[in-house]
């Protein structure tokens, strides 16, 4: 509507940022049982109706980020299909078998398995599919549940910057600021390995007393029993053996990763249809469609804020805070993103940062790469501070606790608050050294 009226610059900025803040607060608090997709879309809708963003600009923003949308789709498809083939159960059972009855070894194996799954399926695969599988496994083995659950939930974030595909956020940031594969590996893979080692080391120290025991392997079914259909299972393994290196090759040639993910998912669905393991409706159920509404809404809201020049100001502020040094760039980028993801959640933060880093584009390469790598690092690892849920959830849990009730979610926070700052600092230091 305001499109047809002239509105002073101040009021445009004010209204846009007001709607932007309202959207973010809405996503954090979810009033009236609205889903995050409803809230993000409402924010975007309000901006469009009020004429604070032109429909063509909104459409162009979404089209520019096609890679992100398709990657989410392909990634969720691959995970859902692999889950339905029984692959995750099969892997977890093998991890248990290779542990030779030692609780300690199983703990290490869960860490390694989580790392491998995150690397190929992205952090969704570990957090959402592996964690419940491991929970069932350790319940059957009558081992302490908490250390293994912690291992899964933390490693999902800790190893999510090994490769560009290990976390969809990496794709969001890198669609705007591409890093060549060698640069990516140097600035993110290497620090990731260091951070994983720290994560494992601290967890092992924390839980060493609970991991002293042994378990009886006989309590578990054989790994083959988890395979629901042999031919389809073997086909899935082959397809994944193709998809994983294709991701790496695609990253090396800056070929869109979403194409690999989509083709991989399509091949897996085709196999499942061929062996009658799924129907199209069932396959579609494995995908969380509301995520697309959520991301689309976020992209439009942030684009409108970008047009007011606010994100550029934020980017300049980050640049100033870094004092023009690469060390400052890495530290400000890392801790800025990490704090941001805990305040407004990681997807919105990655979108905001992608929009803000525009002002860094023309800085010296070390500073530019430092900021980009640190943003990916901070957005990916930051959520470990409040692994289960956002900061808002944790605050709510803290309030509950004051009423003299012990709350399980808080255990994650207690560990996260100790481990995460250390991992962030050491990881950032490694990024800076390798710049």
């Amino acid at each position: 509507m305001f499109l047809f009226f002239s509105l002073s610059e101040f009021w445009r900025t004010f209204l846009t940022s007001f709607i932007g803040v309202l959207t973010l607060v809405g996503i954090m608090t979810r009033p009236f049982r609205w889903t995050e997709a409803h809230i993000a879309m409402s924010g975007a809708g309000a901006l469009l109706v009020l004429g604070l963003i032109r429909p063509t600009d909104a459409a162009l923003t979404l089209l520019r980020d096609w890679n992100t949308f398709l990657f989410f789709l392909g990634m969720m498809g691959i995970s859902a299909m692999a889950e339905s083939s029984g692959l995750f159960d099969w892997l977890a059972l093998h991890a248990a078998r290779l542990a030779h009855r030692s609780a300690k070894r199983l703990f290490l194996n869960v860490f390694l398995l989580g790392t491998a799954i995150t690397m190929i399926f992205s952090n969704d695969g570990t957090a959402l599919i592996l964690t419940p599988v491991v929970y069932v496994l350790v319940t059957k083995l009558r081992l302490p549940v908490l250390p293994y659950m912690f291992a899964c939930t933390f490693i999902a974030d800790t190893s999510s910057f090994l490769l560009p595909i290990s976390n969809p956020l990496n794709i969001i940031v890198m669609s705007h600021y591409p890093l060549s594969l060698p640069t990516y590996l140097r600035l993110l893979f290497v620090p990731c390995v260091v951070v994983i080692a720290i994560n494992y080391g601290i967890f092992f120290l924390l839980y060493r007393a609970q991991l002293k025991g042994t378990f009886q392997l006989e309590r578990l079914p054989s790994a083959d029993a988890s395979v629901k259909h042999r031919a389809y299972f073997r086909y899935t393994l082959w397809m994944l053996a193709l998809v994983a290196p294709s991701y790496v090759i695609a990253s090396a040639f800056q070929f869109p990763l979403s194409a690999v993910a989509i083709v991989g998912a399509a091949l897996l669905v085709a196999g499942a249809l061929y062996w009658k393991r799924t129907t199209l409706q069932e396959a579609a159920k494995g995908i969380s469609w509301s995520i697309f509404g959520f991301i689309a809404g976020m992209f439009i809201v942030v684009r409108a804020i970008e047009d007011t020049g606010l994100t550029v100001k934020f980017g300049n502020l980050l640049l100033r805070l870094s004092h023009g040094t690469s060390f400052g760039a890495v530290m400000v980028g890392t801790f800025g993103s990490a704090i941001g993801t805990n305040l407004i959640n990681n997807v919105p933060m990655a979108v905001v940062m992608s929009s803000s880093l525009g002002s860094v584009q023309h800085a010296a390469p070390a500073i530019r790469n430092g900021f980009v790598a640190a943003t990916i690092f901070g957005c990916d690892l930051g959520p470990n501070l409040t692994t289960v849920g956002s900061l808002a959830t944790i605050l709510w849990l803290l309030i509950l606790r004051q009423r003299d009730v012990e709350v399980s979610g808080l255990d994650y926070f207690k560990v996260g608050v100790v481990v995460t700052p250390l991992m962030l600092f050491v990881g950032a230091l490694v990024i800076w050294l390798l710049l």
Partner: protein
Amino acid sequence: MRVMGCLDGTNAELIGYAVQMFTTSAPLTVALLAVIDEGPRKDLDRMRERFWRPPIHRKPVSKEIETAESASAEETLKAALAYAKGAETLVRQGRPELEIVNAAAEWKADVIVIGAHAEYGEPPRVGPHSVGHVARFVLDHAPCPVLLVRPLAREQFPINR
């Protein structure tokens, strides 16, 4: 006398022996309680919420979780029944600390027998934090006397401080 022993999956023997201490107080009724902790499931749901997904009970893995949890509770009770023959068995689901005190009130327990904390192969420990949060809550909120059971750790004594 009505005695309720609380099992945590690692302390069948300890609780069993402790319950036997009451055998002189006839007539004796013993109940063994195993609580299926809903905490991990809540954590899984919170995790799913972070990744913008619906709760886990809509997924097939939810059935497997349920089966594994009840099988574990059954097994826990069976192990303890070897030490307390003829005891009643109670299975509840929820937050262990709340379920224990509520079950004790409902079952009209005269005494609750509870372990200090779950032991997974580590040597018994004494000192601060050696009473876990479940036992601590039960000590604070029990509707009846509580017998806190812990493994023998005489070799760690005397305490010099």
